[in-house]
């Protein structure tokens, strides 16, 4: 059947655990707010919608990151792809803003993909280098200042406004999610992605154009980061330096917490979705509980390690 569902138990366990953990977070937070303020704001639709809206940016980045992780690569250029897309979109402005922003993502993805697939530089290093280069170019482009022009109305509308009470950003996230699910489960591209992540050489011998698929994956990841950047600029009404920095590690964490194997080849998109929600909620509840920053760091680290411990057991060298 589908690549993702061939072994329910194994791929579903992390998702289930993460889902349970989300409930634990909500319950703990609610118990806390109830004890302290006598109210349960965490369970209100308004709060949850707002969390999801914030989660949309991370969710879109994570969707792209997941695709790259599935082929056993990584894209560390996400922070400045995101920022560059936002900066170029706002500085171009007008109806071309969004296409130009997304174009930046495609371009960076192409460079990454060619570097990794054709020049065979390890992605961890190559994308790190690309990130540094992008950062330099953007600092040069903006002259050290944040670009002076703001987000277009369309960008603001997509990221900040609501339709029927639901944040538009959520619709964008949903569209991206549907696209990713279709790619992974219903298109040969998805099959190739899993195949390459499993065993690149075997996929090559099976007639898969592994290099082209690798490039496509990086382009998709760059595109996702760029889309997140454009939206984030819309949400904040401006682009600014360092706007992508807060998305790299959480996106990797979300993918991994969602049960995708960091070594590629295994993972379901639903898991990534749940991983994103988990991370956003965890952050928010810790902040509501007025957990000191120190404790937050510790808890954040421990949660990730703990989740992986629970998933990781039983994988042996000689499997």
């Amino acid at each position, binding site marked *: 059947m589908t690549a993702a569902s061939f072994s329910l138990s194994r791929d579903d366990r992390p998702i289930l655990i993460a889902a349970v953990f989300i409930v634990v977070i909500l319950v703990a937070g609610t118990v806390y707010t109830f004890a302290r303020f006598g109210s349960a704001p965490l369970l209100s639709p308004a709060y949850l919608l707002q969390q999801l809206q914030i989660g949309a940016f991370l969710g879109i980045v994570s969707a792209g990151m997941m695709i790259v992780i599935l082929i056993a690569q990584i894209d560390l250029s996400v922070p400045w792809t995101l920022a560059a897309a936002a900066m170029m979109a706002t500085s171009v402005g007008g109806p071309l803003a969004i296409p130009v922003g997304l174009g930046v993502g495609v371009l960076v993805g192409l460079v990454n993909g060619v570097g990794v697939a054709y020049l065979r530089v390890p992605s961890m290093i190559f994308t790190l280098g690309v990130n540094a280069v992008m950062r330099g170019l953007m600092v040069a482009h903006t002259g050290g200042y944040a670009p002076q022009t703001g987000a277009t109305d369309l960008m603001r509308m997509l990221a900040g406004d609501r339709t029927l009470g639901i944040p538009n950003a959520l619709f964008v996230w949903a569209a991206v999610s549907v696209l990713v699910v279709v790619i992974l489960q219903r298109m040969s591209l998805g099959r190739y992605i899993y195949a390459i992540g499993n065993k690149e050489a075997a996929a090559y011998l099976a007639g898969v154009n592994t290099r082209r698929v690798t490039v496509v994956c990086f382009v998709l990841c760059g595109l996702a980061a760029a889309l997140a950047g454009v939206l984030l600029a819309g949400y904040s009404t401006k682009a600014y330096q360092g706007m992508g920095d807060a998305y790299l590690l959480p996106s990797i964490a979300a993918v991994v917490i969602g049960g995708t194997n960091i070594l590629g080849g295994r993972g379901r998109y639903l898991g990534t979705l749940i991983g994103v929600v988990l991370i956003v909620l965890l952050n928010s509840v810790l902040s*509501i509980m007025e957990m000191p920053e120190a404790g937050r760091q510790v808890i954040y680290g421990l949660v990730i390690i703990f989740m992986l411990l629970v998933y990781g057991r039983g994988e042996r060298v000689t499997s």
Partner: protein
Amino acid sequence: GPKVVSGPGADPACFKPWSSETKFFQWPKKAGPYRIALVNGFVGNTWRIQMVKTAKAFADQPGIKENIKEFKVVSTGTDVAAQLGAMEDFINQGFDAIVTIAVAPDGFDRIIRLADKNNVVVVPFDNVLDTDKVMMVNEDQKEMGRMSAKWLIDESGKKSGDILEVRGLPGNSVDRDRHLGFREVIESPGNSFKITEVVGNWDTGTSQKVTADALAVHGHFDGVFTQGGSDGTVQALMAAKHPFVPMSGEGENEYRKQIADHAKDGLKGMSYGQSPALVAIATKAAISALQGNIMPQLISIPIPVATYKDLKPGTNYWPELNANFFAPNQFTPCGVNFTAPEIMSQSEKNTQ
């Protein structure tokens, strides 16, 4: 939201308008005591930790304490969306004022509109916003650069020579403004200084490294202007056995100790500072606004400066104390005057 009114504002010695063009705001008067929140962003460095402690110490001081019903501190990290979310949360909870260091100079329009709708006073300080719709508190970074240049010129008594400029974090507006102010004066007509510029990232180790590099290549400087990480710059001078020269740097306690120790050997140092105690002024401004006073839209805080001539142990530096402490904490006109022990008795944790 606030009405735009004409000045002068309340307590002009403390709440000094940025310039003659600065607008004045007035909010509807609210009865105290107030619920105030501090929404910090990043918290990974000493300055921020000290800032949080200072905020708590201030909220605890007699004269302020009475006006505050609840004081909450939250640090949201470097994600703008998270910071906006936290602020929205406080507005919805019915807080009266929010004091904040913005993660980014933009993106707060929506929150400001929301705050105005609910008559919540939002006071960004330190990293201010690119907008004039909100009351803000800051020190004039350009002025720090200008002061530093004047100091170097006056102390060396020369109009030419080699100057080392150690810059801060690239791409940051504070770094940019201090740099521009410095260049404005040092390169003004009549001067012919040769300036070598290196990037120290406001970090002791990096400043030390790049200064050492510059010394190795250029051999000698007649004056040094350094941003954060000043003690590293001095370290590098000493390691290279470079004679002490006039110097201007940040407000780190360690740097002030170095000046005090080596002033007699020629380290004619000046120490300016972006004080973590800005938070106290911002809080005070919020209270004042809530009380219905007329307030300047952009408040300029006098820059706390100490030089080798007026350093006094236990007053503006603490020889026995932690090297990473930021010494300048006095704004006498505002009645804000912390000693190190007062600040350090606070925890940096988010409040309960």
